[in-house]
């Protein structure tokens, strides 16, 4: 008789506690769900803010003038047209711009990659008195941005008669401090025994570099190469200064001149031309993004 109420009491207490526990689990779960929902909403928001201009570019390139100048916004063109691409190609010598961009990007990018590898190799593996001074000189170069020396460099290139030539576009930017620095850091993590063994076997420096160091450092070399090539493709200030005729303009420069010619009136054509410049980089990025992103992030965190 005595026990009944106590049991009941204990039971209610237990029940209360259980229900409180479930409630707290439920509320924690609810809180968790709210957090997740907020997270997804914020993520969607960010993607829209970054993505909308890209969508505006893509749709603009396939809109007709009527859709572009329509008072009611056309998010997706009703009748996508490819005319703009043909007209953009006609409006400026884009074939020539492509050739110029490809030549200067390949030449400038390759020069950077090769010199980054050879210089970093020399700094790590080749004996030389005052090697540290050479390294210090590179650090100094790292501190002088290209923009600061454009005026004297223009005078040099003009004196050599290299205005409006590929050499004029490529040479001043062909040397590389940052990539050399990155590769040097990476090479230093490779065990010296590996290269020593090869050298004892009679391999020269060049062979040790190409058959041992570069393959081991392949990820770092690839990141450096990607950064170099993308930077060369997008380079703006120097090619703008050192080209005065259409024949040697690269894509970004040609695009700017097209804007002067067609901007405000022919947005479809201008957007199509913009895609000429952007598309190759986007394609490369889709293939190599993880690589590129992780390379850049590693440089920052370890730096």
């Amino acid at each position, binding site marked *: 008789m005595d026990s009944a109420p106590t049991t009941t009491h204990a039971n209610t207490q237990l029940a209360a506690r259980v229900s409180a526990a479930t409630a707290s689990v439920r509320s924690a779960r609810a809180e968790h769900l709210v957090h997740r929902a907020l997270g997804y909403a914020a993520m969607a928001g960010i993607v829209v803010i970054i993505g909308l*201009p890209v969508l505006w570019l893509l749709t603009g390139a396939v809109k007709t003038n009527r859709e572009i100048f329509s008072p009611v916004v056309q998010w997706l063109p009703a009748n996508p047209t490819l005319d703009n691409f043909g007209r953009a190609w006609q409006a400026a010598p884009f074939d020539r711009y492509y050739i110029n961009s490809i030549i200067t990007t390949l030449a400038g990018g390759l020069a950077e990659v090769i010199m980054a590898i050879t210089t970093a190799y020399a700094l790590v593996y080749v*004996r030389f008195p005052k090697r540290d001074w050479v390294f210090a000189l590179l650090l100094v170069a790292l501190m002088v941005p290209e*923009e600061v020396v454009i*005026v004297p460099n223009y005078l040099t290139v003009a004196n050599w008669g290299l205005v409006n030539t590929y050499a004029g576009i490529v040479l001043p930017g062909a040397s590389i401090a940052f990539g050399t620095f990155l590769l040097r850091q990476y090479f230093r993590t490779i065990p010296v025994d590996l290269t020593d063994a090869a050298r004892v076997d009679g391999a020269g420096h060049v062979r040790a570099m190409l058959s041992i160091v570069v393959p081991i450092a392949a990820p770092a070399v690839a990141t450096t190469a990607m950064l170099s090539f993308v930077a060369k*493709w997008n380079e703006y200030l120097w090619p703008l200064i050192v080209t005065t005729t259409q024949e040697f303009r690269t*894509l*970004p420069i040609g*695009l700017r001149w097209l804007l002067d010619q067609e901007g405000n009136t022919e947005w479809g054509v201008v957007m199509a031309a913009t895609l000429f410049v952007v598309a190759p980089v986007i394609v490369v990025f889709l293939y190599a993004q993880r690589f590129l992103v992780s390379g850049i992030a590693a440089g*920052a965190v370890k*730096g």
Partner: protein
Amino acid sequence: MKSPPNNQNLIGRIRRDWREWLTFVLLAGPNLGLFVIFTYAPMLNNVLLSFQEYDLIRSTGTWVGLTNFQTVFNSSQTGRILLNTLVFTVASVGGVLLLGLFGGLLLNQPLRGRNAARSILFSPFIISGAAIAIVWIYIFDPRFGLLYTILKWLGLTSPNWLGDPNWALLAVIIVYIWRNLGYATVIYIAGLQAIPADLYEAARVDGAGLWARMRHVTLPGLAPVVFFLIVTSILSSFQAFDLINVMTRGGPANATNTLIYHLYEMAFINLSVGRAAVIALALFGLMFIVTLLQLRYLERRVTYA
């Protein structure tokens, strides 16, 4: 009688040393040679040019003492340009760092699709600045641009972004932040992932809530990355030329004229080489200070880490 073998050893060693040195010169020489011609020599040349009145057509200079410095520092334009540069740098670096932190914290959460979101965020960073500028001119178009549409939808009228001196600098800053946000996000994520998980665990055991963990674990853990981002962002904002050149050419009425644009304008539009050299020196001085801060910091990290 023992000297011949010794001599041969010595000769052999010298020969080996020479081969080694020659290899070094061949491997590192081209890179350094280009730096001598296109970086070190022009730095000196810049100093010399700043004391000259240079004739581009005859390519000869005459010494004019401090005239160029006086002209640049007494020009009423200079104050405006320095102010623009300051506003542009502070606003764009601040915007990139704060919004990037938000992006980094968000995309470090276990959300489905976050990798795709990271890539989308990062993509503007690798696109040509000229192309970005052109797309945004179309977006800013006050008659049928994207922003006009959105603002109208919100019941607001669109300013004449790039044509109005009160709005143009803000417009360029918006584009700059849009372009660099993803870079900061990626760096922040790398920094967040470098914070040891035990620290969070320990904080949780101590009963630290979300905000306390943020204040006492996340933000201190991110300090090195924040410092790196501040330095690199300041340096790259000083170099932001392509956006300004394509979108506004420093206008309207100098509203978006920054040091880097002014340098270009002075040298290649006004053809005033000496004064351009003065501006280049000023730009270099500012960037040098920022870089020194970075080096000092790196040194400290190396010493105490």
